[in-house]
């Protein structure tokens, strides 16, 4: 594989259609401004007719320097920063960071706080997968057609969850709900009732989408046997989350390495068989239903008591962990989200490293698309569900 840097300026000239003599290939720069690259991905493509012979994703267009920024902020100030990383699922980012700091400082989290964390992360998982399902519709069908219908339906459903989050935290997107030592807000009166109503409604809606997708001939021909990910390749590239589970590997940190008292809950880990786009889609849809079950259980078992083992943040009190390093990881909607934290004993972290699942999943793209048609690139990219805020950080 040649790297992007070795391509000459002439090859990148966007207005000229040049055909390489020996291979009859057409070089296309797809993105970073392109309707369905999920934000700002650039793919350098070589096409032979409609067939993809070479693909190279180029990232970095959304790099905001989070890791460097974090070195100049106090531990408490980093929590809202974490929200802005994977903006489709902010709560899980906060959670991973808070877990890391708690592990470093050996803070016990109250049971109620842990349950609230499970509740919010599972709600977030459903919301995030709904965004994925909607945008997958756009990837397959474009913004003017059946795809956009699916997109708007999914956003209508997601709206219910956002309303619940607004009620709980006051924000619809950047919640700042977790804090070091617990969570920040008590659920308001009648919250449980409304969450249960939401679960009933969404369970029905998701079953409907599942049925539509599994019986729709057009959806089937577009996703079955497309982008088949062999398990070995998935493991060696570092794929995770629904992408790896779609290939039939039952690996989920909520089961394999429970955090936040996930061991108290009963739920299934769905897996696929073949590892094609259809399996990945199916895994995500079943995961939404399992997450709704988890939300229900968290509500049922929600104990009374304090929600944080540390006083509220508005009391000025510096967080100063001891010297040391720690790695905490959780199962975010996209896979294993890890936080590596090095403390030198001061009020600011010495180094903070995010291990983002979107990044390692995106690395699969060149392996999966070669040999497929041009239209399949979008089907495959969509099924990997990358969020570029998290890929570039």
């Amino acid at each position, binding site marked *: 594989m040649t790297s992007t840097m070795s391509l000459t300026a002439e090859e990148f000239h966007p*207005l*000229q*259609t040049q055909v390489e003599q020996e291979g009859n290939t*057409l070089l*296309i720069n797809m993105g970073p401004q*392109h*309707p*369905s690259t999920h934000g700002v991905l650039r793919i350098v493509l070589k*096409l032979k*007719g*409609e067939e993809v012979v070479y693909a190279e994703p180029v990232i970095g267009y959304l790099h905001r320097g989070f890791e460097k920024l974090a070195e100049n902020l106090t531990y408490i100030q980093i929590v809202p920063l974490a929200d802005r990383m994977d903006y489709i699922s902010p709560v899980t980012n906060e959670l991973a960071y808070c877990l890391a700091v708690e592990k470093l400082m050996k803070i016990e989290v109250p049971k109620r706080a842990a349950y609230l964390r499970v509740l919010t992360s599972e709600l977030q998982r459903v919301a995030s997968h709904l965004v994925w399902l909607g945008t997958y*519709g*756009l*990837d*397959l*069908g*474009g*913004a*003017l*057609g*059946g*795809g*956009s*219908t*699916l997109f*708007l*339906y999914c956003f*209508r459903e997601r709206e219910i969850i956002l309303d619940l989050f607004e009620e709980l935290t006051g924000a619809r997107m950047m919640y700042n709900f977790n804090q070091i030592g617990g969570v920040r807000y008590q659920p308001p009166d009648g919250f449980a009732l409304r969450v249960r109503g939401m679960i009933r409604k969404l369970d029905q809606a998701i079953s409907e989408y599942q049925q539509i997708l599994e019986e*729709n001939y*057009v*959806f089937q*021909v*577009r996703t079955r046997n497309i982008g088949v990910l062999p398990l070995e390749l998935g493991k060696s590239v570092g794929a995770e989350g629904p992408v790896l589970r779609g290939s039939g590997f039952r690996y989920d940190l909520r089961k394999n390495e429970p955090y936040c008292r996930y061991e108290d809950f009963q739920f299934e880990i769905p897996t696929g068989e073949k590892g094609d786009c259809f399996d990945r889609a199916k895994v995500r849809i079943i995961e939404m239903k399992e997450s709704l079950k988890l939300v229900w259980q968290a509500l049922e078992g929600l104990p009374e008591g304090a929600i944080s083992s540390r006083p509220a943040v508005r009391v000025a009190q510096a967080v100063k962990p001891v010297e040391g390093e720690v790695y905490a990881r959780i199962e975010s909607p996209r896979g294993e989200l890890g936080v590596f934290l090095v403390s030198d004993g001061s009020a600011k972290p010495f180094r903070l490293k995010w291990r983002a699942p979107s990044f390692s999943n995106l690395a699969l793209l060149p392996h999966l698309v070669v040999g497929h*048609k*041009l*239209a*399949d*690139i*979008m089907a495959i990219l969509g099924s990997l569900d990358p969020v570029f805020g998290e890929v570039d950080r």
Partner: protein
Amino acid sequence: MISSLIFSAIVLAGILVAVMYLTLLERKFAGRLQSRIGPQRAGWPIGYLQPIADTVKLLMKEDVVPQVADEKTFNLAPIVVLLPALLVFVVIPYGDNLILADLNIGVLFILAVSSLSLLGIFMAAWGSKNKYSVLSGMRAVNQMISYEVPLVLSCLVPVILAGSMKLSDIVTFQEKVWFVFYPVLGQLAFLVFLISALAESNRMPFDITEAESELVAGFMVEYSGMKFAFFFLTEYAHMLGISFIAAILFLGGWGGPLLPPGVWLALKVLFMFLFILWIRWSLVRVRLDQILAFSWKVLFPISLVVLLLAGIWKVW
């Protein structure tokens, strides 16, 4: 002479205004389908001024011609695309004796003229000198040539049954039973016609030529302002044309009980138009190779069988 000029002017203006308002209909329809309201601000409360606002906006936009584009081809393409789409309406009977030119070879004329649009699309694709539009042009040629065959074959079924290529003859032949109600034969022919007509006019699920999710906007990617509006008009004129042709060839034209003929034809056309929209807003796109395979492996054999059946029916 004068009267036919006036009539043709009326038809042209009518078609263009109808097409403008059909865009509003589509947006309203799609809005309802997606649990939205659709346009309503321009022309409160149902958005009846929206098409005019759109036109004014498109007229006022800057006319951009890319530096590397082949200027003549680039500028000519929108006209070459639009004209055939409008020419189809010349031979369509809007009622008894309400026809601009009742050609003896009406069906042939429609088929011949409507396939000319392909030339314009390819000119637009080639003239833009954009990689996406070139890919889209290749797709358009592939797709349209493949679907021409089943389209022509399925259009021949009413011709064989009625024994004439004259559209008014075909309509009068269906006075008692519409062709779509002929057992098996009629439905199959109608289905083949509908699918290949959708593909011919690049509608969902066959709209791979403008495939927004991979080719951005396909052959129209470099067009803006009024030139873009020409492509847009063509698309809707095509849809309207298909609805008319379907209504005339298979649904008995202006014929029907109780209501006056004009109302019947309008109802049938509206039904067909909404049916096309319904398909568009519920399905996702199919891939090029799948579309071609479907045409040659499924539609083509079926249309041959249907043609044979029609011949047997006629002889028997």
